[in-house]
């Protein structure tokens, strides 16, 4: 018995150094050299300032921008407190929230069915994407707010559609932050 404890302690220490420190530090070193942008969090800079990450949603509320999906991360889009609403399908809070958002959007956009991703919180609260339907749905509002022809906005959305990876995997999507950055570059 005595020797089991001794071996366990020595073995744990040796492997903890090798696997707990050696392995992640080697990966950090290689990744930092080969893929510095991605290893560094895919940050986007504008005028020398970090405005966000390509991979993470951030808050947009004005009519002039495309809005991401609603977020349950922290008090909204908190990239240091990711998470979903965790509300059950049988939760009155959830059903009331979703139906309330749908009714509001339908009143503002009569005749258009509301894309479901527009009124549901994502799992991470940081989903950077919306569905193409969702972005197209918002084109009318942005066109009015910016005084740009709606067709041009729709065209911009089409250019930003990322299709299924390898033609099969996942779903078609639009990255909201990248779309909004290009939206700012559009002239009247």
């Amino acid at each position: 018995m005595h020797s089991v404890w001794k071996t366990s302690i020595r073995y744990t220490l040796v492997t903890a150094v090798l696997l707990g420190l050696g392995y992640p530090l080697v990966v950090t070193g290689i990744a930092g050299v080969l893929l510095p942008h991605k290893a560094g969090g895919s940050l986007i800079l504008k005028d020398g300032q970090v405005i966000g990450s390509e991979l993470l949603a951030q808050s947009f509320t004005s009519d002039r921008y495309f809005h991401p999906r609603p977020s349950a991360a922290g008090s909204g889009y908190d990239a240091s407190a990711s998470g979903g609403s965790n509300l059950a399908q049988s939760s009155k809070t959830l059903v009331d929230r979703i139906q309330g958002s749908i009714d509001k959007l339908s009143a503002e956009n009569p005749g258009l069915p509301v894309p479901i991703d527009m009124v549901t919180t994502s799992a991470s609260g940081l989903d950077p994407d919306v569905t193409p339907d969702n972005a197209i749905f918002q084109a009318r509002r942005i066109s009015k707010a910016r005084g740009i022809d709606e067709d041009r906005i729709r065209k911009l959305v089409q250019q930003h559609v990322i299709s299924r990876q390898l033609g099969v995997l996942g779903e078609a999507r639009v990255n909201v932050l990248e779309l909004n950055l290009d939206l700012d570059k559009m002239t009247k």
Partner: protein
Amino acid sequence: MSANGWLQFALFSVILLASVRPVGIYLARVLEGERTWLDRVLHPIERLIYKLSGVDSAHEMNWREYAFAVLGFSAVSMVLTYAIERLQQFLPFNPQGLAAVGPDLAWNTAASFTTNTNWQSYVPETTMSYFTQMVGLAYHNFGSAAVGIAVAVALIRGIKRTTSTTIGNFWVDMTRTFLYVLVPASLVYALLLVGQGVPQNLKAYTTAHPLEQPKQTQTIAQGPVASQEAIKMLGTNGGGFFNANSAHPFENPTPLSNLLQMLSIFIIPAGLTYTLGRMTGSPGHGWAVLAAMFVLFTAGFATVYWAEAHPHALIHGAAQTATLTAPGGNMEGKEVRNGIAASSLFATITTDASCGAVTSMHDSLTPLGGMVVLINIMMGEVVFGGVGSGLYGILIMVVLAVFIAGLMVGRTPEYLGKKIEAYDVKMSMLYVLIFPLIILAFTAVFVLSPTIGLSSLANQGPHGLTEILYAYTSGAGNNGSAFAGLNANTWWYNVMLGWTMLAGRLLMMIPVLALAGNLASKKSVPPSPGTFPVNTGLFATLLVGVIVILSALTFFPALSLGPILEHLVLKAGQVF
């Protein structure tokens, strides 16, 4: 449901099945101590580890010695993690200056990672320093995975050896699994993940100034994510670097990274079925076990996908059917890049295997979708299951299936030449009974207590019962996924779930090793006309039957009060 959704399932299945044979052969070579192509680099490191830790690699252990080594390593490495959590403010790699983890949470987390559960009562990005994540937690992702494989291979040796008192050397099995399997695979895999966008750095969190409101800030948590992500999936651990786990775009940024993550959960458990067939000289048996697993997996996916693709009956005016430009269905708690199909597939895989990583929030699944992922865990984590633990778990079911077949024809059952006798069946039943006993007893206590149990609920009605039932099922099954609305970061939940996870792991390993020791000591009897063959479709069917009937008999009453009731009342228009 869409054709593309099924195409994604088909693609996943084809790649997985194609990997079984090569992975199984490689694992067998590593675990039987044969030469591999990595020997030239790794053999000196292997010998150095033995030397530094005082291991006699030629020594063969009997089952008791093996079990003591498992317990010794688990205890010591668990204490190490507890100490790191409690002292992290004094340790390096803590750029956010995170404070010490509280005692009950540190206990829960140490138990959780030691047992390959990776249940997380905490928000990692605001609780755990990089040092704690790397040395305290990701270290166990390697360690607990290797322990699972070691115990599984010890059981295979028990089946294979005749009139032997020993079942291998625990330290050698661990070391070879680390060096020849987990580390090289994780290195390559981590870099692939970085290529898809997973961060890997040690810098402090970045403060960003959002485009629309530059005066506001967004704090972007990062860290050594990719290295942890790789072993988290390969070792079926599932503990997220971030709170949202594999739903977080930094952990799982693209549909391709999602496919890789799903494959990496199943690849070792699937390969081990071939290892079983190869090491016992009965390849057909390995395939039959795999077939039983695959049938249960497919049935689970079909049901979850069907349930999640359904529109919500009480929501009107939204586009809820799938098109080329929108996935429709239940998108609460799911990410757009994965949609309904890939999210359903991931949820099925992560609960079939005792992984517990999530790309969707299981608490927000439909009642029936949530029930299937819960049942996946309740089946004992034997549908592929955890690395190693899935194989020894299903071998317990195999012993029971063979025993039942023996009862039907009135003969002493045999399994691959070994007579299955009272002791073997007793150990198997012990394994099978400990599991529901822990789950149902703890759930009952917490459901009955308003102060320590019900006060943590996020959802009311039958779903509330399911939240608690899911927590203890996940803990005992060493899964680690959650109906995460439940606030489990309370003293009572932390302490009791800690014991649940330890019992669900270590208490269940001991009967397995006892069985291994007993089988190894037996003589081999040649097959006779009365022997029930274990390499046929009939056997696979019986095995599926045993697994389904056993879990249904045990858990149906609890399920009928939880998800089944929720489904029925929701259909009737009732919300809570």
